[in-house]
């Protein structure tokens, strides 16, 4: 275990030896999956706890009212919110929505609120880890295509297993709720993850750093262009029709 953690640490500080040690261990894909699951679950611990508390406790009506009032204050920058008729209607809406939320919260499921709340929070928590695996497989396959086109080569399982190391700096997301510096630490974790991804791509495919970087961002750029072209085509099609 200590040697595994040592290898993982070396990969985070971009030491080539760490990547080699990780690749030489047996069952690289299974280890990668476990790594992603563990890191995703740990990084999502805080949101799981918050979600759990939210779901097992009944909604606070004062909070809902406060939220609606806050929205009203925020919307003062829009011209429509200056209209006294709009303001009156908004107050009337608040008077209806608050008791509606109270009554909806009282609609019972066959299981008690504590259990249903726990199952809901658990489901969301696990779904995040599964989504992380899906994203890793999908984006990894596209990066491997780009790497192949740029002259690199790697076996699918070996490549996916190596690039999975990018999740480790994601642990910094755990510090996101820290006041003032939390978002900065999360941003640093994201950038660090990209750097580890590029390094892992370089090690797994034999590409140099520049080409590995290109291989990592090419799928993102391709999606951006594809999205723009498809949106333009849909708009054009409907403009022709109507």
């Amino acid at each position, binding site marked *: 275990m200590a040697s595994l953690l040592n290898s993982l640490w070396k990969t985070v500080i971009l030491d080539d030896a760490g990547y080699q040690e990780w690749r030489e261990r047996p069952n690289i894909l299974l280890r990668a999956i476990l790594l992603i699951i563990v890191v995703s679950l740990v990084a999502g611990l805080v949101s799981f706890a918050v979600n759990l508390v939210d779901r097992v406790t009944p909604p606070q009506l004062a909070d809902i009212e406060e939220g609606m009032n806050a929205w009203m204050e925020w919307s003062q920058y829009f011209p429509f919110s200056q209209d006294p008729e709009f303001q009156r209607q908004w107050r009337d809406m608040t008077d209806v*929505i608050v008791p509606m939320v109270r009554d909806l919260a009282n609609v019972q499921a066959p299981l008690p609120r504590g259990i249903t709340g726990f199952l809901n929070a658990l489901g969301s928590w696990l779904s995040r880890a599964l989504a992380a695996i899906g994203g890793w497989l999908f984006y990894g396959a596209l990066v491997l295509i780009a790497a192949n086109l740029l002259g690199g080569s790697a076996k699918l399982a070996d490549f996916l297993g190596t690039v999975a190391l990018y999740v480790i700096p994601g642990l910094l997301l755990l510090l996101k709720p820290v006041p003032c510096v939390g978002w900065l630490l999360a941003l640093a974790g994201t950038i660090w993850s990209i750097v580890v991804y590029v390094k892992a791509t370089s090690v797994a495919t034999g590409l140099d750093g520049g080409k590995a970087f290109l291989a990592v961002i090419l799928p993102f750029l391709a999606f951006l262009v594809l999205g723009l072209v498809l949106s333009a085509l849909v708009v054009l099609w409907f403009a022709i029709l109507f």
Partner: protein
Amino acid sequence: MDGIVGSLRLGWNALLLKEDAYEEMRADANPVVKGLILIVVVGLIVALFGLVGNILEWASTPDLNEIRDTVFYYLTQMPWWKMAGQDPNFIKNFDQIWNFNWSLATTLAPTPGKAALDILLVPIALVVRWLIYGVLAYLFARWLGGTGDLSETLGVLALAVAPQALNALNLIPFVEVGNLVSIWAILCAYLGLKTVHKLRWNRAMYATVLPFLLVIAAAVLAGCLGSAIFAILVKGG
């Protein structure tokens, strides 16, 4: 029993993208039969786990009819309703849309009955999808210079059903497996086609995705045709 255990072991190795598993399936005397066993077993396991998960999800979901009635009561108390409600056509149209949406929601909501029916439907759906995709992928692979035969192709593509086992996580209610199964299955299918047909990586990739592109193209064409017919009807000409 050995056949089932052997198929499941092969499925597990295929899930971990081990090329040996695909080679072993290709070399098997009856790859189609072995593949069919794997698909049916995975389908049954997934459906059984789904049944338990669905019962738990149903037991954790508040009564939809009570929610509908509560929301409707408060909607009619809102200021905009009082203004819009003066128009009888509005009430009539609103009722139609409201009832349609809620009947859709109750139809889609999980029930133990529907989950029990899945024990039959899931394996059948998996087998049908396997056969259609298998034949299309075989045709594209051969067109791209592949050398495998149809039974070998179907055999290795049965291994691409292995990621469906992840749907067993539906045992835990509210878990969303999402697109993970499809993405993983495509990667397994790619490895299978590459192994059986001895294709280069790019040709194996084309053989894997072309059947999907064919279906997407057909869907887009149908969408364009449908919207054109709709536009003609709206314009009345």
